[in-house]
């Protein structure tokens, strides 16, 4: 298999470094600044390129927000399937809109193969198997990966998010709707707010009958004060530890039930682990659905979470609250 990675920043670079050389025939790295150095370090199975060559089987898109739809369109037109680590509303919408074209070309686009969205959807689908009926799904995340992730975090907080309510999309002001969310240790509790996140668009595809789907991200007072201004300070190379949290509300055997799953990890590393596992699942699968789909709808959630756990990305469940 020939695999291309577009964008060799915190997430793409991590995928390239951790991808076992035995599983792929050739790794092509596409990044204006970092591809040459990284390819040299990785050895003979890796090479850099200015753009994705036409004979690639799978393209992992880990580039900055706003660029992923055009790259995915180009990839499917050259006969490659796509694993996209998209998290902005624009990218997720654009990638989902390629569904018909991807089907016609017999290719698959995995939309949101990162920490959030990505792992959040798989967690939600897995947790839903313990309940008779799910009517609400609430996503929260804390932390950022590399510099572009931090920029996207800043941008998302200053723009309207989307709440899903009984089949309708309701725009909600970014930075509103404060809610204290409890993440797995060592992350702990953080106030989370609405933001322009791609998660609800994908979760609503997984749970079209849900009454409410929301997504929030953790922010400080300074984040909220400055969200509508340009970033005055350059973002850090890596944001350290972060976390995701998925809360499902519904019914089991006639009684109200709430299930909360979460995970704590550095977001860039976690996204790389999810994307890499998605590529492996994709390669190993004998019958892959064509079209453009959320990651969770293309994998077996139990098996996927087990595989992530063996690679150090552990899912946890919150239990015992009154």
């Amino acid at each position, binding site marked *: 298999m020939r695999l291309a990675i577009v964008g060799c920043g915190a997430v793409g670079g991590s995928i390239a470094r951790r991808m076992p050389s035995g599983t792929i025939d050739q790794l092509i790295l596409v990044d204006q600044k970092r591809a040459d150095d990284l390819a040299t370090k990785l050895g003979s199975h890796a090479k850099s390129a200015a753009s994705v060559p036409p004979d690639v089987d799978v393209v992992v898109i880990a580039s900055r927000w706003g660029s992923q739809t055009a790259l995915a369109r180009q990839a499917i037109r050259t006969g490659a399937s796509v694993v996209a680590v998209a998290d902005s509303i624009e990218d997720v919408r654009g990638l989902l809109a390629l569904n018909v074209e991807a089907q016609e070309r017999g290719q698959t686009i995995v939309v949101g193969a990162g920490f959030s969205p990505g792992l959040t959807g798989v967690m939600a689908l897995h947790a839903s198997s313990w309940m008779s009926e799910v009517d609400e799904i609430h996503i929260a995340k804390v932390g950022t990966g590399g510099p572009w992730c931090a920029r996207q975090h800043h941008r998302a907080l200053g723009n309207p998010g989307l709440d899903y309510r009984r089949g309708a999309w309701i725009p909600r002001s970014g*930075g509103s709707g*404060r809610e*204290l969310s409890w993440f797995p240790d060592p992350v702990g509790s953080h106030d989370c707010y609405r933001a322009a996140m791609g998660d609800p668009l994908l979760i609503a595809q997984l749970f079209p009958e849900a009454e409410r789907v929301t997504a929030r991200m953790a922010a400080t007072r300074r984040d909220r004060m400055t969200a509508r201004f340009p970033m005055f300070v350059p973002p850090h190379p890596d944001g350290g530890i972060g976390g995701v949290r998925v809360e499902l509300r519904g019914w089991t055997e006639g009684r109200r039930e709430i299930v909360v*799953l*979460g995970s704590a990890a550095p977001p860039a590393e976690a996204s790389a682990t999810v994307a890499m596992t998605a590529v492996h699942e994709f390669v190993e699968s004998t019958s892959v659905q064509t079209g453009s789909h959320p990651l969770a709808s293309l994998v077996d959630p139990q098996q996927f979470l087990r595989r992530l*756990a063996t690679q150090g990305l*552990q*899912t946890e469940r*919150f*239990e015992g609250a009154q």
Partner: protein
Amino acid sequence: MAFLRFVRRVVTAVTGAAMIAGVLRLRGQGGVPPQTGGWRELSGPDHS
């Protein structure tokens, strides 16, 4: 003079409103943390 007084009043009103909105937006916390319970890693039975 009347125009300047009007401008000064508008600026004062807008500044005051912005300060009050800022305080309302930033004050407080989002809720009460859970008093019991905790996180545990998913294990065998959780994967069935």
